[in-house]
């Protein structure tokens, strides 16, 4: 929202600099995003008179313009076609910035002709969108006058953030911001003296409000003898400064009052409103109504768009025909134009929920709807109507004939009691009751005080324009922010010495990540959203996933029920730059629905190791398997033997990506993938206590190497498992060499025999050894003689 400093000064004296003001407002009301000093923005632009206009010798559309700048003459080359000798036009001189773009103008030679500056269009001046010709000024302006002075652009315009004011309908106006500044700067507020308009109230215009919940108040003024003309310059300048386009006096006045006081107004052409009554009855005022639109109704709004309405839209009707979308935008059929002589000015109060719904369903958001959404004060309608009638009268733009005011249950101020103890406890500092009163009064709230024991109870009357203040906590904010958050001494809460630590699963999640890091894995983060195509590439069906109704793009339409697609995408990306790397992600898979259809999230670990095409795949696979065995033994103290390919548990998967999967992701090398559901690991961990056999045996082990041949496709693992179980004397069985020949492979294992209590002899080991050989032979392995 744009706020003009000059306009604010109508209501409050401001003696501090714009940057100090911005800082103060940021600290006590809402963020001021920045401000523009218009006189700086228009630096180097002067008003010049066109003395001579000649065709450019080398162009049929360019002009050579000779201008007088009050001191001397300058030659300009210009392509605009709306110039004439004697006109006063704005000239941007060399070395200064174009207001719209901020680019610095350099001296130029255009088709062989020197140009000592640039004549500007409205768009280049950032005063509108018109770029069809040069912005022609009033010919009474003396050549050489600084443009910003001539056009009243000596203002400073603040850009104020709206978000923090969502609850402050009263602040969407210069009056509202001025009131805040008066409280912040402790300077009195000059409210407008309210000349009464009650004398005009009559009931010859009839208003039908279908439901007063949607429309708490509807005021309408009939103004006759209307003379449509441009609005006075100061009105146009202020509207322009605040980003609104001047149109004509009546429309500009409605916008002016909205920006000044916050009350949206709308002007209907009365003659056009009455046209549906039929000829001959032209001057009889139509019956106005406020109701929900019917599902089949159609309305063309002022912007030229035609809308199909629904019961979500509140409309203003004239003899039951919609003529405006209430609180959002007027209809084109009753638009004010140069021929307008009689108007109806609407100053109404619509329900904020209704307006929001209406504006959202139409996809139309306007200055008016934005204000109504903030829950405006119905009493503001009268203030707004009074002000526009004043402007109309002052400028001879028409005469108010009568006013109708439909206001079935007037909004009255409410009262909130708040005690000094409540204030001090919640703010955390002792605030002098005198300061409390000063602060509240400066915001336009009135106070009474009662002593209740050691406490003071303030009875605070809330004016109707502060509809956001309904509970004592709301007043805490008012007191604290004006008192100044920087004046509150920070304190730490008290706590006991009770220690806090991570939960077991939190500790283990961290341990999983750290261990993987130490094992050489890089952690990646993926989006939780995926698209159909990516899911398909990974062999998944997106249709089975939760679907987003309003995705940013098709690639972000589903919520993943599997972490693999994201990981695969990242492996594919990195395979372009690396030929050996390992990645992992810990995230949530949305795996199923609970009883009430609530999504169930499962903490999952996925990982992958990418290796070059020519790298030994079995070796790579065993390396990843070894990583997982290490991970499990560190994190869960689980016997690593339970992990492995073909493991019966569906909760842990370790596999070599098949060629199709690799092809889908354009991977030239090989890929080993794994997935582990962490909650299962954590559960396993809980079941296995840390207590174990930590004593080091004093006996010497007997170590024996056995090598044997196996068919190339033979699986050794299960046989080794069998050997391990053979006898308690077998401490461990390890593979220390795998050598592949053309038709078979040679496997070398190291078997360690040991008894913790007594020293074993070869004699005792011999029978176990024989059993080992039997198992190997039975498995079809050819034991090599050593």
């Amino acid at each position, binding site marked *: 929202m744009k706020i003009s400093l000059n306009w604010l000064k109508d209501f409050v004296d401001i003696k501090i600099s714009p940057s100090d003001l911005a800082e103060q407002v940021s*600290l006590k*009301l*809402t*963020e001021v995003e920045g401000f523009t000093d218009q006189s700086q923005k228009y630096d180097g632009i002067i008003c010049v008179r066109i003395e001579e206009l000649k065709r450019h010798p080398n162009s049929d559309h360019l002009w050579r313009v000779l201008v007088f700048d009050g001191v001397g003459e300058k030659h300009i080359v210009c392509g605009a076609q709306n110039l004439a000798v004697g006109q006063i036009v704005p000239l941007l001189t060399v070395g200064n910035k174009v207001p719209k773009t901020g680019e610095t103008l350099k001296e130029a030679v255009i088709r062989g002709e020197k140009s000592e500056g640039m004549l500007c269009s409205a768009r280049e001046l950032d005063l509108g969108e018109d770029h069809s010709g040069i912005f022609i000024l009033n010919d009474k302006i003396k050549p050489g006058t600084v443009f910003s002075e001539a056009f009243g652009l000596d203002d400073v315009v603040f850009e104020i953030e709206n*978000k*923090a004011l*969502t609850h402050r309908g009263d602040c969407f106006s210069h009056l509202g911001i001025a009131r805040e500044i008066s409280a912040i700067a402790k300077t009195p507020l000059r409210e407008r003296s309210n000349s009464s308009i009650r004398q005009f109230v009559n009931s010859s215009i009839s208003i039908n409000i279908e439901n007063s919940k949607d429309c708490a108040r509807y005021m309408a003024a009939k103004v006759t003898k209307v003379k449509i003309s441009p609005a006075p310059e100061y009105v146009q300048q202020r509207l322009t400064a605040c980003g609104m386009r001047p149109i004509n006096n009546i429309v500009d006045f409605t916008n002016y009052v909205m920006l000044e006081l916050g009350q949206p107004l709308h002007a209907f052409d009365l003659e056009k409103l009455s046209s549906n009554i039929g000829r001959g009855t032209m001057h009889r005022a139509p019956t106005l109504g406020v109701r929900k639109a019917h599902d089949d109704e159609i309305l063309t709004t002022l912007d030229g768009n035609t809308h199909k309405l629904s019961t979500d839209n509140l409309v203003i009707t004239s003899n039951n025909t919609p003529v405006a979308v209430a609180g959002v935008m007027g209809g084109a059929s009753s638009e004010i134009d140069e021929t307008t002589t009689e108007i109806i000015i609407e100053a109404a109060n619509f329900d904020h929920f209704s307006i*929001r*719904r209406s504006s959202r369903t139409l996809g139309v958001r306007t200055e008016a709807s934005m204000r109504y959404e*903030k829950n405006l004060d119905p009493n503001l309608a009268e203030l707004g109507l009074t002000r526009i009638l004043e402007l109309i009268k002052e400028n001879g733009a028409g005469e108010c004939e009568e006013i109708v005011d439909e206001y079935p249950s007037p909004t009255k101020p409410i009262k909130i009691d708040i005690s000094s103890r409540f204030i001090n*406890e*919640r703010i*955390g*500092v002792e605030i002098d009751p005198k300061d409390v009163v000063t602060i509240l009064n400066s915001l336009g709230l009135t106070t009474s005080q009662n002593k209740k024991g050691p406490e003071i109870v303030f009875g605070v009357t809330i004016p109707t324009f502060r509809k956001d203040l309904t*509970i004592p*906590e*709301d007043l*805490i*904010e008012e007191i*604290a922010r004006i008192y100044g*958050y920087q004046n*509150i*001494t*920070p*304190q*730490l*809460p008290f*706590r006991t010495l009770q220690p*806090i*630590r*991570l*939960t077991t699963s939190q500790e283990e999640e*961290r341990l999983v990540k750290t261990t993987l*890091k*130490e094992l*050489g*894995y*890089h*952690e990646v*983060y*993926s989006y*939780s*959203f995926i698209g159909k195509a990516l899911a398909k590439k990974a062999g998944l069906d997106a249709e089975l996933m*939760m*679907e*987003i*109704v*309003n995705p940013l793009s098709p690639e*972000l339409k589903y*919520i993943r029920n599997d972490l693999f697609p*994201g990981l695969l*995408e*990242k492996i594919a*990306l990195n395979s372009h*730059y690396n030929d050996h790397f*390992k990645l992992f992600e810990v995230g*949530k898979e*949305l795996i199923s629905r609970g009883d009430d259809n609530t*999504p169930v*999230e499962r903490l999952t670990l996925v990982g992958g190791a990418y290796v070059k095409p020519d790298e030994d795949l079995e070796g790579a696979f065993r390396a990843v398997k070894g990583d997982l065995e290490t991970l499990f033994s560190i994190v869960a103290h689980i016997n690593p033997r339970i992990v492995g390919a073909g493991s019966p548990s569906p909760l842990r998967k370790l596999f070599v990506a098949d060629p199709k999967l690799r092809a889908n992701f354009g991977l030239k090398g090989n890929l080993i993938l794994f997935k582990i559901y962490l909650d299962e690991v954590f559960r396993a961990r809980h079941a296995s206590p840390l207590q174990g056999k930590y004593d080091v045996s004093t006996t010497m082990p007997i170590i024996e190497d056995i090598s044997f041949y196996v068919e190339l496709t033979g699986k050794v693992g299960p046989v080794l498992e069998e050997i391990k179980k053979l006898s308690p004397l077998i401490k461990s069985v390890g593979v220390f060499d795998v050598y592949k020949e053309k038709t078979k492979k040679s496997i070398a294992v190291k078997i360690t025999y040991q008894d913790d209590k007594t020293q074993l002899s070869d004699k005792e080991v011999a029978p176990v050894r024989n059993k080992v050989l039997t198992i190997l032979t039975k498995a079809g392995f050819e034991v090599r003689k050593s």
Partner: protein
Amino acid sequence: MDELAKLLKELPNLSPAEKKATGLRIKALKAELSKTSPQDVKSDSKVDVDETLPGIKPNLGTLHPITQMKELAEDIFLNMGFRIVEAVEVDNDYNHFTALNFPEGHPARDSWDTFKTTEDFLPIAHTSTMQNRILKEYAKSDKSNNLRVIIPGKCFRYEATDAVHEHTFYQIEGIYVGADASLATLIGVLATFVNTYYGYKIPYKIQPTYFPFVEPGLEMLVQHTRPDGSKKWLELIPSGMIHPNVLKEADLDPLKYKGFAWAIGLDRLVMLKYGLSDIREFHKGDLRFLKQF
């Protein structure tokens, strides 16, 4: 060495006490000077090792920068007595809005830019979606202790992605309920956090802001110093006193209980810490980026 020898000759001229002290110091110096460092040995070495070749580094992995900073932030709050509860990724409208004093049709809902699933669930747009659950759980407990919880979570907003905007981002919610909850203690907790996180007293300021679930609502800004030395205020932690309606909705009597809550934007915290300029790198998974952390 020669200098030391000269000094030794001077010793007899000193008083007995000085003699002893100076003697000891000379001895220590002598020991220090006569030590050989490993480099000195090399000329004698006959081993065939080229020490000038670069070292062979172990293949260590990396943790994502967000994980690293999340754990740092978590540890700071753990030390302050806050326990950690993980946020959900997808939630219902009640937890996300209604329980947080956003009535149906409230304009503040617009600024959350939420995604919605076909079944009307919301990929969470803020970790505050956990507040009602945590507060309710506290309401059911004996409440002998203050409630101190932080909730890290992955959040989602309908926002087009560019260098400084992401539809997926991370927050750390904090909730405190206790008799001494006030604006002063809220500011105290947040200031302690940012000072500890940055490792020095970083300048900060507090500005008013609006969220339906707090009253008053506060925004903490910290003064970020860019590499070129210029300074900028950055909005870092939105916070506020928990709105009485939110307490009521969680079965806590707002006349008896009060608290405060905040949400830290983790991505921004990480970007500031490392001086990163493109938020999109976080989800790209490019090792050329990740290996630097």
